[in-house]
């Protein structure tokens, strides 16, 4: 039978399918951060259970960490307790933790690929919806709840229902300055935030194979914004080259064995998907979200829609609510929207390529009056590499703040946040009400678009610069 990549990974990880019970899937890698794990460790302790395979786990501290004055004690006592609890839990169970002082520290979905911890064909979980990022390697990677975190720690398995498959086929060539982020936003705009519900998406087509590994991570990262359980890209030479030589990548004889297996993973010709969506890469403009859901997005040359533009009453009502929250008027041109704060970072766009392109745009410019611009590397390794390349100087000379790594303003748990009514151009992944601070207004964009908005003080079509 011809199988999709998802089906191959599923089949090879099926431990048991007992009648009347959900199929039990084996988990190869378990990623962890401080927010969604403490209650799982507590559960294990109460039930007198042990972590079955400590080597399958890699943990970091990212959500609550300050991005400046890292040497000072953490001011928020509850955050401090959460961070200490993580350290205690990892120590007690013998888990590999990149804590705040560790040179490997950073946002979980940035750190894990840096060390080659995820390979093609694996099943990977984390108590975090953006686990989908690792689908860029052709691994089945998805977010789980805290009860499931406990389940995986105890049994190395997870009861799972099989998902449907969706092929998102994107052919053609992206225009200059249109990026993986714009593809991700355009897909969400097209199918909606519930469009992928119940599905695992496989991204294919020339525009996808042309993406770098980092671009593929950005794309898969936002599979969840389109409602999908996971996103996948078939592994190819780029994937293998990226992994080779990394700390947790196979080596020697094992490398050859692994490579042979990885090459068997891509979807068989003629395998069928439940749903197929196609986009033409050349049609994808730099995207800007205008509302409070990632599906409320449009190209930079467009204007903000009016509630009357939607036939669906729910969408129309959602548009009216979003405009009210965002303090925007229908029909305003996207390029006329002013911005107060620029954030480049997060597991969506906090990698070295993101800072390279943003620095290219920021070089020789000045951040506009009354605009604050902050660059938050996704990890210490990203930070160091950017500094080795002199990117930090470019940002600082242009009036940006160059910070320590962490999730920072992506979800504003660490004190970096928007104030009421403040408007951001953000390279993160969610523009929900209050996501970046209560009353804050978020516009999701690519790093290049964010950098261009920093000096202009409003959105600009990056292609015209």
């Amino acid at each position: 039978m011809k199988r999709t990549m998802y089906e191959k990974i599923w089949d090879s990880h099926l431990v048991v399918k007992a009648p009347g019970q959900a199929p039990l899937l084996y988990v190869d890698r378990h990623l962890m951060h401080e927010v969604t794990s403490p209650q799982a460790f507590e559960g294990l302790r109460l039930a007198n259970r042990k972590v079955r395979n400590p080597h399958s786990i890699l943990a970091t501290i990212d959500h609550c960490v300050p991005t400046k004055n890292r040497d000072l004690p953490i001011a928020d006592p509850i955050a401090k307790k959460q961070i200490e609890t993580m350290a205690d839990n990892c120590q007690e169970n013998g888990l590999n933790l990149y804590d705040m002082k560790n040179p490997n520290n950073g946002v979980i979905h940035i750190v894990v690929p840096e060390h080659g911890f995820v390979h093609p064909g694996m099943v990977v979980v984390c108590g975090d919806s953006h686990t989908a990022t690792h689908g860029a390697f052709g691994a089945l990677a998805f977010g789980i709840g805290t009860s499931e975190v406990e389940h995986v720690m105890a049994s190395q398995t997870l009861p799972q229902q099989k998902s449907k498959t969706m092929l998102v086929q994107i052919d053609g060539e992206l225009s200059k300055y249109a990026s993986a982020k714009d593809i991700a936003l355009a897909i969400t705009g097209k199918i909606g935030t519930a469009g992928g519900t119940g599905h695992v998406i496989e991204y294919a087509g020339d525009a996808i194979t042309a993406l770098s590994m980092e671009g593929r991570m950005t794309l898969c990262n936002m599979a969840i914004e389109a409602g999908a359980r996971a996103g996948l890209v078939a592994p190819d030479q780029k994937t293998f080259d990226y992994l080779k030589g990394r700390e947790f990548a196979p080596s020697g004889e094992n490398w050859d064995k692994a490579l042979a297996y990885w090459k068997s993973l891509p979807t068989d010709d003629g395998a069928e998907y439940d749903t197929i969506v196609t986009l033409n890469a050349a049609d994808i403009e730099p995207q800007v979200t205008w509302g409070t859901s990632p599906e409320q997005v449009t190209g930079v040359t467009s204007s903000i829609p009016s509630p009357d533009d939607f036939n669906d009453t729910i969408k129309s009502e959602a548009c009216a609510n979003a405009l009210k929250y965002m303090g925007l008027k229908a029909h305003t041109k996207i390029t006329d929207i002013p911005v107060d704060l620029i954030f480049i970072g997060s597991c969506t766009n906090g990698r070295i390529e993101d800072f390279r392109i943003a620095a290219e745009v920021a070089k020789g410019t000045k951040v506009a009056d009354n605009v604050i611009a902050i660059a938050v590397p996704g990890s210490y390794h990203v930070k160091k590499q950017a500094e080795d390349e002199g990117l930090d100087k470019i940002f600082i000379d242009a009036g940006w703040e160059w910070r320590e790594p962490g999730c920072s303003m992506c979800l504003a748990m660490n004190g970096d946040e928007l104030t009421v009514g403040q408007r951001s151009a953000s390279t993160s992944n969610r523009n929900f009400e209050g996501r970046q601070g209560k009353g804050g207004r978020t516009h999701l964009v690519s790093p290049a678009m964010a950098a261009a908005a920093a000096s202009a003080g409003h959105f600009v079509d990056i292609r015209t610069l």
Partner: protein
Amino acid sequence: MEPYNKHESVAALMTRSNVDTDQIIPKQFLKKVERSGFGIHLFHDWRFNEDGSENTDFELNKPAFKNAKILVVGDNFGCGSSREHAPWAIADYGFNTIISTSYADIFYNNCFKNSILPIISTKEQLASLMNEISTNEGVQFIVDLENQELSSPAGNGFKFEVDSFRKENLLKGLDDIGLTFQHLDKIDQYEEKHKQTYPWLWA
């Protein structure tokens, strides 16, 4: 886990769709290391005014909806973050049943781990229920999981689908980990084979 029993309860109404987990439990409350006590923060940013007083415009603050165990809500409920704090807050607040046309996948799974039944309706069924509640605030519905049936005084009830495995677990209040441990021998066998097939993962 608490067993899920047949019950007759007030149904509260929220017509909005795409309610995300950031709204259900805003991130400022995610720093706790315990599982309990999230109910007071449910829908915090909508539920309370700046000064901490109740926002009387917010649906769930209507006196008729106090003590509701059933939440009737618009499409795609629970999208966004995977935080299980969302169902913890919902359960702790007092809801044990949600009715909507669709849920985000992770949220849907999380509900079953916390004795919450997420019922999936059709658009029409949801519209009728919403209508019934808005014309008769405080109306009580009966949820009978055993027979997979919802009933309402105005006759807007329906039979609903639910996975048989999850249904059994809810009814008996069974913990998934305990069930999985019945298959420990299978897991051991699988792992032995795994070590042979993918030796680089164990190197």
